[in-house]
């Protein structure tokens, strides 16, 4: 078991820099999820940790040892690939035993480890099959098994569940979580699925265009997003972002409405800001407590919840609100709403940084 240190790591392909300097200290036994949109450099970062991609600048250390110049095999890591990368000409057993044989382990020890992993992953009956005789979910398990038997100090996962159907994905997600709880091996997991990220992670690295926008626990990232990008990326439906201006007396003006702010921010009155409100933090109010009115356009009924799309004050300000399923409303209605001051997120209008 080991911690992983990522220090000012950069990556360029030729002239083009795709990772612009990432810092992160990953503690021993932590489950880290790297989350971000397609093309932001998640896989590249993971592959640099694995040793499959050269590190252009900066340092990566595993268990206190700088691994920049070490071969993948000397880094004591195991990786699960998106397409599983099972050896097609070998049986499930041989796929799992391959790495152990190379390390010169005794036959008995190999057999014990493979059988143990197979039992954990419910692959017992499939050991003699070739990968092509397995379903997608079973292949995924074999790929996990191949990493498991090695008992490495760090697990790396590159979108391991993205080829599975929705139901299987949920099931495997829980299984991975359970495995981590028993093994407590440091794990780094790449995904672009925010639900996967939130449920698995001890800490998240939210990446965008080669930068780490925020590093923190799922709850931190959800409650205090560091930038408008993070705010928009985490949460479903996405956070409402409206243009606003700072008022003078610790308020902010959005769509012609003055809202009190929990922690007044420094800055001159009139400074343009972006105001974020999560759909689930906006509640229905009565005439006395309401802060603004929503002119309803579309209503989506989800059962437990109802998503109400509409506009507030004027044409441009669209808003989505998540209301309890019991609320009945329809297009053309006007719904009075309120939002608590502590649920307002203020961001710099230009840089997008949290204020």
């Amino acid at each position, binding site marked *: 078991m080991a911690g992983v240190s990522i220090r000012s790591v950069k990556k360029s392909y030729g002239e083009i820099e795709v990772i612009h300097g990432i810092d992160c200290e990953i503690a021993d036994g932590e489950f880290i999820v790297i989350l971000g949109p397609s093309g932001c450099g998640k896989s590249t970062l993971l592959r640099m940790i694995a040793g499959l991609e050269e590190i252009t600048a900066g340092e990566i250390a595993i268990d206190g040892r700088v691994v920049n110049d070490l071969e993948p095999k000397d880094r004591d890591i195991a990786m699960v690939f998106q397409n599983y*990368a099972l050896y097609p000409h070998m049986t499930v057993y041989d796929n799992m035993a391959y790495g152990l044989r190379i390390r010169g382990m005794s036959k008995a020890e190999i057999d014990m480890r493979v059988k143990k992993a197979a039992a954990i992953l419910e692959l017992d009956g499939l050991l003699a099959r070739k990968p*092509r005789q397995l379903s997608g979910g079973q292949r995924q398990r074999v790929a996990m098994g191949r990493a498991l038997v090695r008992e490495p100090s760090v697990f790396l996962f590159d979108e391991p569940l993205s080829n599975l159907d929705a139901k299987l994905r949920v099931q495997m997600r829980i299984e991975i979580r359970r495995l981590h709880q028993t093994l407590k091996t440091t794990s780094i997991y790449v995904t672009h699925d925010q639900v996967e990220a939130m449920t698995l992670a001890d800490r998240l690295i939210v990446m965008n265009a080669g930068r780490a926008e925020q590093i923190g626990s799922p709850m931190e990232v959800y409650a205090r997003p560091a930038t408008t990008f993070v705010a928009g990326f985490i949460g479903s439906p996405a956070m409402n972002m409206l243009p606003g201006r700072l008022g003078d007396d610790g308020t902010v003006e959005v769509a012609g409405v003055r809202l009190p702010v929990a922690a007044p921010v420094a800055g001159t009155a009139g400074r343009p800001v972006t105001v974020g409100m999560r759909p689930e933090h906006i509640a229905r109010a009565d005439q006395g407590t309401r802060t603004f009115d929503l002119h309803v356009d579309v209503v989506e009924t989800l059962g437990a919840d109802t998503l109400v799309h509409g506009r507030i004050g004027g044409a441009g300000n669209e808003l989505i609100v998540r209301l309890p399923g019991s609320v009945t409303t329809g297009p053309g209605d006007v719904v009075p709403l309120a939002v608590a001051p502590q649920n307002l997120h203020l961001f710099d209008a230009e840089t997008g940084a949290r204020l």
Partner: protein
Amino acid sequence: MEKRVVFKGKLLPYLLVAPQIAVTLIFFIWPAAQALKQSVFIEGAFGGNAQFVWLDNFIELFSDPGYLHSARVTVVFSAAVTFFGLAIALLLAVMADRVIRGATVYKTLLIWPYAVAPAVAGVLWGFLFNPTVGNLAYILNKLGYDWNYFVNGGQALVLVIIAACWSQISYNFIFFLAGLQSIPRSLIEAAAIDGAGPGRRFWTIVFPLLSPTTFFLLVVNVVHAFFQTFGIIHAVTQGGPANATEILVFKVYNDGFRGLDLGGSAAQSVVLMIIVIALTVLQFRFIERRVHY
């Protein structure tokens, strides 16, 4: 989805396959039948009075030390051409697979020799190694090696092997390269993480995954070495010196058209035909059952 065209009449479909059938009949079935018939007759010295002799031609063939010698030469020649043709092509393909800069030029240059006709390739190599005017022969002689393939049978055999290999390497190279490029990169990466070095990755992952390609090329190369190297032998050594490079196809020609032993020559052709049929059957059965790993 079924991609089948159904014809209304009977005439059109027959008409459409007629040219193919005609070509096969005239240029393959008919000569083959002739050879079969010929192989059980002995032709008179001046033609005409052919005599039916059952399998005497074959019996004579297999008790003829000249024929057995030719068979041995063919085995050595084919094995060498196939082995070196495959091994060198595989080596080049593995290296080409790694080249990033100038890869297209490199690949194109490697493919060119295949466009050169075997006879021309033969002349070319014969010229390069010509004991009196050849550049390579000059270098060999300078290095203290007594090179003269006109008199040294072993050297002549080496030379025709080189010439036959040369163009075959290009052909094999294309197939190996395509095979290599169809192996997903992540497999190699997974093996690297599992701890396998480059050599081990090649022998335990890449080579097994290339085996369908290798087997296909093996059969094609053996067939090539057996039957399509006539032009090279004819251009370079004429089977000599002292029959050292007389492979079976060349002996068919030598005995039939020079020695005018039509019956014996036909019997040899029949033997070759049987070999080709066996190889083809082997290949088809394998391809049919070919499991993609």
